[in-house]
């Protein structure tokens, strides 16, 4: 019973808002530290790839961005499921706070994929299964954001957006496999990425960059979550106390 109580207290915006405020600098600092370390190893220390030359260094942002874009969508769907099942206020806010970062990660993944593809495959864009799925993921992010933005009632926006996320999560694997299958049918394996065994330094660089992207996403999402929270809770006592307290 006591645990339940604590959990609810933690999930209430009044406690979450200041907690998030204290956490943001830490996540920012971690993002900077991991980023600098990752860039140091990836850009300065790691040797060249014998097949792809120096062009392979795009991997240090391309792969982390792709991972984050997929991971953020899953986290949003997780929050959506919690929100729909337990009717919690916080979950919808978290999902909405994460969406723009996820969409930007998908965009970064596509952008760097194009810049990587041009020298490696000779084309800015190929209808590779992974690239195509990433593009569709971006569409799903945009659809989610457009839907939540179009609904004025925040409760309905949260729930409708959550349902859309769950439908998307069911569909993403189906879309991925159908695109993959379509791709092998049309293109064969000619454009497969070379699977050269990665040197340990490269792996470390990529891991550090992934951690950097992760911390960065948490930090920005928390900033956005705080804004959403404050706006929605502006009539509650804690928000009023906070807003008038700052003035003095």
């Amino acid at each position: 019973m006591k645990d339940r109580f604590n959990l609810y207290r933690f999930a209430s915006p009044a406690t979450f808002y200041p907690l998030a405020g204290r956490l943001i600098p830490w996540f920012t600092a971690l993002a900077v530290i991991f980023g600098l370390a990752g860039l140091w190893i990836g850009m300065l220390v790691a040797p060249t790839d014998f097949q792809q030359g120096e062009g392979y260094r795009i991997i240090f942002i391309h792969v982390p961005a792709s991972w984050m874009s997929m991971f953020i969508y899953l986290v949003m769907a997780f929050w959506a499921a919690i929100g729909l099942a337990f009717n919690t206020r916080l979950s919808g806010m978290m999902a909405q706070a994460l969406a723009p970062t996820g969409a930007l990660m998908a965009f970064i993944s596509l952008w760097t994929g194009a810049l990587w593809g041009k020298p490696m495959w000779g084309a800015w864009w190929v209808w590779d299964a992974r690239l195509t799925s990433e593009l569709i993921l971006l569409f799903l992010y945009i659809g989610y954001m457009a839907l939540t933005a179009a609904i004025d009632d925040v409760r309905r926006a949260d729930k409708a957006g959550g349902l859309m996320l769950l439908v998307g999560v069911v569909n993403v694997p189906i879309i991925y496999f159908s695109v993959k299958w379509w791709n092998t049918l049309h293109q064969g394996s000619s454009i497969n990425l070379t699977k050269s065994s990665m040197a340990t330094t490269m792996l470390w660089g990529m891991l550090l960059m992934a951690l950097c992207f992760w911390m960065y996403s948490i930090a920005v999402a928390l900033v956005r979550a705080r804004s959403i929270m404050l706006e929605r809770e502006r009539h509650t006592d804690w928000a009023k106390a906070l807003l008038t307290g700052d003035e003095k």
Partner: protein
Amino acid sequence: MLKIVTAVISRDLKLAMRRQADIVSALFFFIIVVSLFPLGIGPEPDLLRKLAPGVLWVAALLATMLSLPRLFADDHRDGTLEQLALSPYPLGLVVTGKVIAHWLVSGLPLALIAPVLGIQFDLSVDALLVLTGAILLGTPALSGIGAIGAALTLGLRGGGVLLSLLVLPLYIPVLIFGAGAVDATVAGLGGEGHLSLLAALTFASLGFAPWATAAALKIALE
């Protein structure tokens, strides 16, 4: 149980018959879009035969989109939808009925007219048969998935555009297997594999979509 589904179907069909112009215009939209492509890309039969499956399927997706915003909007406006939601029957069954009725007036006509349009693209008889079969098998999935989007965007400003933004990405598997079936037949590989996958998609979405749609409708009606 089944009675409520058939009752909803016959009611929706009756309503649709009163507005035959809507059905006909969606059908003509399909015909016009498909006929525009040869004018845009040239009359070479080889090229047209290669493009036909994709063109016909994309046009079918767009034509289905046209009638989706109306799926729940009219019932929502006159309060029928709330009555249906309050009725003792599961809302999912009501939605199943509405989805089937929607398919009968939007998907079925497309399947019937598609072979005629396929002739414009110089498709062989085999390919025309597979095309008809694929559209027959695939369009119920389009109505089902589309119903989720229609329920989510119910009563929103700019609902129609938003609806296509939400639903079109989810239509991709149907497009791939639908066009793939015709493609494979044209290439002489046989489209059975694609058709069975398309049937699987349709059954899965007809099982899953009505319940998701019912949940979305409840959210919209709250």
